[in-house]
């Protein structure tokens, strides 16, 4: 009697193992696709969606990104360059609701950041040679030219909305939505996926992302790149609907005679911001996270807390030029260091 019992027990065990391990074999159920949009690589991860629907959703996002690219590109002919052309001539221009909503949001975020995130300094960004797909070359801009620009104190306060028109009080106010347009596009893409009934997704545009829902029975896991190596410095699990944006001095830069000039320009002095190496922000809304990462990078290790508070940002990690990680108390609860030994860490209350 023992043998059949043992036999059935083993068969049952084998059946359990089969079910268990065949479950593991189903690979991940994430549909991952990459597209080229906004001048970068956009990766879209969708969970719990069949292949055909996922492909349709990705194609729809690609089309939308292409439309946004044509609207908001800072130097290729776009709706934005048309607006800039009219602002340069001191004229007012009629804008549609979409443009008004976007520029108003950019203005509000800029004012909240005390103009550290400043989309009105397109002329200064162009002076540094960053209005090109290629790396800038040659000497940095002449200090007198930079001083002359900075002395005008161009900010978004000078962009005036009147009914359905916009004008500026200074022809030097030229819009550049770098540090915001990508976040806006990611927000639009997520809204689009939701309209299509997709509840679990990551839209990662050139390293900056918004994640909604989960990957099955666990949250999405994000690795944040170490600014001084190619590895991962921290990991974070997203909660339901969050954006993770990082601004770093390694992304784009102008190199001349062995000296590097990165692309995050401090509007207060006209030069690349000093003090920070990278700033990572978690916030629900991608456009806010994008603008905040830029503003807090410029604010640097001494002033980031007050700007974060004003912008309504709770989760911040700033790594300074000595590799010290400054964390908001809320961020310290969320991240896990993935490097050994972890960097020197300073946790600060906002």
């Amino acid at each position, binding site marked *: 009697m023992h043998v059949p019992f043992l*036999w059935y027990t083993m068969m049952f065990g084998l059946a359990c193992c089969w079910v268990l391990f065949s479950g593991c074999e189903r690979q991940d159920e994430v549909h991952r696709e*990459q597209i080229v949009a906004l001048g970068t*690589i956009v990766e879209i*991860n969708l969970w719990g969606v069949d292949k055909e629907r996922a492909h349709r959703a990705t194609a729809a996002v690609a089309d939308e990104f292409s439309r946004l690219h044509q609207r908001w590109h800072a130097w290729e002919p776009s709706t934005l360059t048309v607006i800039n052309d009219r602002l340069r001539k001191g004229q007012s221009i009629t804008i549609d609701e979409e443009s008004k909503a976007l520029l108003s949001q950019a203005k509000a975020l800029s004012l909240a950041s005390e103009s550290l995130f400043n989309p009105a300094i397109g002329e200064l960004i162009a002076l540094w040679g960053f209005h090109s797909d290629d790396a800038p070359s040659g000497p940095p801009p002449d200090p007198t030219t930079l001083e002359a620009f900075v002395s005008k104190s161009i900010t978004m306060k000078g962009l005036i909305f009147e009914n359905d028109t916009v004008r500026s009080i200074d022809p030097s106010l030229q819009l550049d939505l770098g540090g915001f347009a990508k976040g806006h596009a990611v927000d639009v893409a997520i809204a689009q996926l939701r309209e299509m009934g997709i509840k679990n997704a990551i839209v990662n545009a050139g390293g900056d992302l918004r994640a909604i829902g989960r990957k099955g029975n666990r949250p*999405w*896991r994000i690795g944040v790149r170490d600014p001084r190596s190619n590895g*991962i410095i921290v990991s974070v699990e997203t909660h339901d609907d969050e954006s993770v944006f990082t601004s770093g001095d390694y992304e784009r830069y102008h190199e001349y005679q062995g000296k590097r000039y990165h692309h995050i320009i401090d509007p207060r002095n006209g030069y690349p911001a000093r003090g920070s190496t990278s700033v990572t922000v978690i916030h629900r809304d991608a456009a806010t996270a994008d603008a905040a990462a830029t503003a807090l990078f410029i604010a640097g290790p001494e002033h980031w807390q007050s700007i974060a508070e004003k912008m309504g940002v709770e989760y911040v990690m700033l790594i300074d030029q000595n590799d010290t990680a400054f964390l908001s108390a809320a961020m310290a609860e969320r991240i896990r260091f993935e490097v050994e030994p972890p960097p020197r860490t300073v946790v600060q209350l906002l």
Partner: protein
Amino acid sequence: MTKADAVVVFLALSLLLLLYSRYWIGTNAGETARILIPGEPEIEIPLEQDREYTIKGTLGESKIAVNAGRIRFVNSPCTTKQCVLSGWLQNSGAFAACLPNRISLLVAGKALRFDTINF
């Protein structure tokens, strides 16, 4: 030992061997990296085999080398060469991209612990 006992022992040992070969030997076989090109299926390559790969991107060919369990861009037709300057990638999650040529590399490791990379 009866015949049935022998069958049970045989099946148990077979299962053990199957699981060992699949989930133990397999993972010791080495790390892998993924070459990602928009619109193309991912290319998964083993890192225990030293060799050079030529991958066609938007601008031209990028040369990618695998050596001693590491991977890197050796050359790329971009102007900034940031991808080449990224150097060797070894740890799981390590990432480098040639954005102008639309090619990126990701070390997947034995088990990639991240769903995506923020940078």
